[in-house]
């Protein structure tokens, strides 16, 4: 399986994150999966004319393309020309190149939320008129259109995340290379289910605080960040707290809220990222699959039942009240 990787309008952070793959390292992983890099902008030797020749060969059909990875959103501006991002040396926009190359690829993978849905590049009025490959925010379409299918029949695989976890990308590629990835492996937004069937909430070390709605009121307090600090880990897909980042990390483990970076339009939540919008003091945007009345009833009950240890810790910047030790039973 060969792979061509192009960086569109993004920050390059998904590649940088991918280079953090461990046990084994990225190069060993790719080699082991039989994935040969035709070209990657951060890794390959070839530059300038050598790359233009490769792109020409793919375009003419002389070179088969198995997997096309696009990282970054596609800038359509100004005025639909795509000239906010020209693929250097080619005199053509990235918009033009991706439209031309995608139908020739066996699989097309959108690496990161920008490539999938527009992502941060589309934030704040979207100055570059950026969209994803097959989505414009949550709306199907993008530059390739809702009906697009790559040569081997799949729509764009949206490995969303800002950035993507290195394993999300490498495992998707390995499954594609092994022929183990079909339409049933994706959720309704085209994301691989192997990480999108979990919520960021799963495995979050703040779960005990969540159970009692023992909430942090300001960043650096270790309580649950849902009620006041904008955390939407109970709604955001991702196995971030099951399979941590950079060894042992995750956003909530780092003491800051999950901002739902695997979802379309996370970049413009309509409120400050680290503040929970409320109506009459009640957070809007409760867990999606729980009846609101039940949630409210359980929340007020559990708040009332909060053990002193948990209430105390929630407002501290570290555990100040360790678990209560019970004297061992038996052995009288």
């Amino acid at each position, binding site marked *: 399986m060969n792979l061509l990787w192009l960086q569109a309008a993004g920050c*390059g952070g998904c590649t940088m994150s991918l280079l953090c793959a461990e046990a084994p390292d990225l190069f060993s992983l790719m080699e082991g999966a039989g994935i040969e890099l035709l070209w990657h902008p*951060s890794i390959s030797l070839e530059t300038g004319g050598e790359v233009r020749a490769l792109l020409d060969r793919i375009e003419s059909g002389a070179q088969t393309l198995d997997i096309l990875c696009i990282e970054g959103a596609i800038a359509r501006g100004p005025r639909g020309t795509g000239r906010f991002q020209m693929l250097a040396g080619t005199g053509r926009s990235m918009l033009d190149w991706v439209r031309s190359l995608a139908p020739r690829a066996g699989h097309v993978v959108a690496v990161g939320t920008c490539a999938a849905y527009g992502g941060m590049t589309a934030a704040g*009025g979207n*100055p570059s008129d950026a969209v994803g490959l097959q989505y414009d925010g949550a709306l199907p379409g993008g530059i390739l259109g809702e009906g697009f299918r790559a040569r081997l029949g799949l729509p764009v695989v949206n490995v969303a995340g800002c950035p993507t976890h290195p394993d999300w990308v490498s495992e998707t590629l390995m499954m594609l290379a092994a022929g183990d990835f079909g339409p049933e492996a994706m959720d309704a937004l085209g994301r691989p289910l192997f990480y999108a069937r979990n919520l960021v909430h799963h495995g979050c070390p703040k779960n005990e605080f969540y159970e009692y709605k023992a909430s942090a009121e300001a960043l650096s307090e270790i309580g649950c960040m849902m009620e006041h600090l904008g955390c939407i880990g109970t709604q955001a897909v991702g196995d971030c707290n099951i399979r941590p980042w950079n060894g*042992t990390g995750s956003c909530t483990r*780092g003491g800051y809220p999950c901002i739902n970076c695997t979802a379309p339009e996370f970049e413009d939540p309509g409120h400050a990222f680290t503040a929970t919008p409320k109506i009459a003091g009640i957070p809007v945007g409760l867990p999606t699959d729980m009846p609101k009345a039940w949630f409210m009833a359980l929340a007020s009950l559990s708040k009332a039942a909060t053990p002193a240890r948990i209430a105390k810790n929630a407002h501290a910047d570290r555990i100040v009240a360790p678990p209560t030790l019970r004297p061992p039973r038996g052995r009288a």
Partner: protein
Amino acid sequence: MSRLVVGPFNRVEGDLEVHLDVENGRVRSAEVSSPLYRGFEAMLIGRDPMDALTIAPRICGICSISQSAAAAQALAAAGGVQPAPQGALIAALIQAVENVCDHLTHFNLFFMPDFTRPCYAGRGWHRRALDRFTPAEGGAQRAALRARAELMHILGLLAGKWPHTLAIQPGGVTRAPDERDRTRIRATLRAFRDYLETTLFGAPVEEFIALATPADLMRWSRGDAGLFLEIAADLDLDTLGRGAGRYLSFGAYPLDGGPVFAPGLWQDGGLAPLDTAAIAEDLSHSWMLGPTAHPFAGDTRPDEAMREGAYSWCKAPRLNGQPAEVGALARQVIDGHPLAVALAGGGVLARVAGRLLELARTQIALERMAGAIRPAERFMIRTPPVREGQGAGLVAAARGALGHWVRIEGDVIASYQIIAPTTWNFSPRDAAGVPGPLEAALVGTPVAEGEETPIAVQHIVRSFDPCMVCTVH
């Protein structure tokens, strides 16, 4: 005279196109173009000031933490607050880890592979360059990837993840490390030192730091650094792509006892006072509209017509009306390291050696910072929301001086301007026709007959370690 268009230019972060006028086998003049515009400064306007901490890091996936640090410092300055000292220490530590990783990535993945090219077959060192730096296969590349990933465990621990953390705040950092974290950080740093001393330098980092003259440097034969120096001597990389010797640094890692590396301006062979009020961005050759302005007064309005005569989305920052080179070499010269001072004004060799020197010195600084963590103290103070005010965040990204200038009015961001390191280094010409540092450094570069993408040009461009996604943002 012939004209060459070089691109796509890879093993640089982001998009770059270089136009060369070549005459008699030499570059007569160069134009450097940043062909991507996203408009981050415009995105920030009208938003809650704290949103800058989420959005600004996403300008760049390789200097993400530097963008965080600059945003947090700009917001702190606008609000007139100081972070908790231990919070500032952790912020500095995680930023230093990112910078070290960037230097490592640059040397092993971006810069050195060019010496594996067939045009160098037959050189005494070519076989070893192939063994060490063939993309995705070379031993040095794989070792660097592993060392980098393991060092970044410190970021998993303290910053949640890399890139794009929200851990750095105006009041400090969101997570208070405990005694176990401190122990783990020290262990990770010891392992990284082992990597540096067995692989990159092949000797204690202190020995590399003790090099005081270019002659001492060129005698260094150990590790992958030694291989680079052997190649540099053979190809005379010292004279290739020399700079004007005018360096700018905002200093690095502000701690209780002062910054780890001093800020300043270096010109005419000596230090000069740095007046950041004398910074202005010229738009004469950029596809941007508006007058030349200091970033507090600046604006980002793209020229959608992409007018003739302009050739880049990059603005042209000038200090006292003149360009300046930024980067590890600039920082080390301004900090007064004798080897760096002796290399001032140099070309490819000086920039790469400056980076290796900074890598070694930062390892020591990291160990000192880790030793200074006091888990019992506070790592963040609560800061009130900033309703009005302006402030600048001036930091050291791996590639050089990074500045954020924010103005807040009526609870929201009224203006946000960013000058990234590569905005300085890869700036287009200004109204006086003065080229940017890379454009100037490329003049005189040899171009062999038939070369489409001249190898010497590639060495020079990559010696700056450009980050193009930051450049225009």
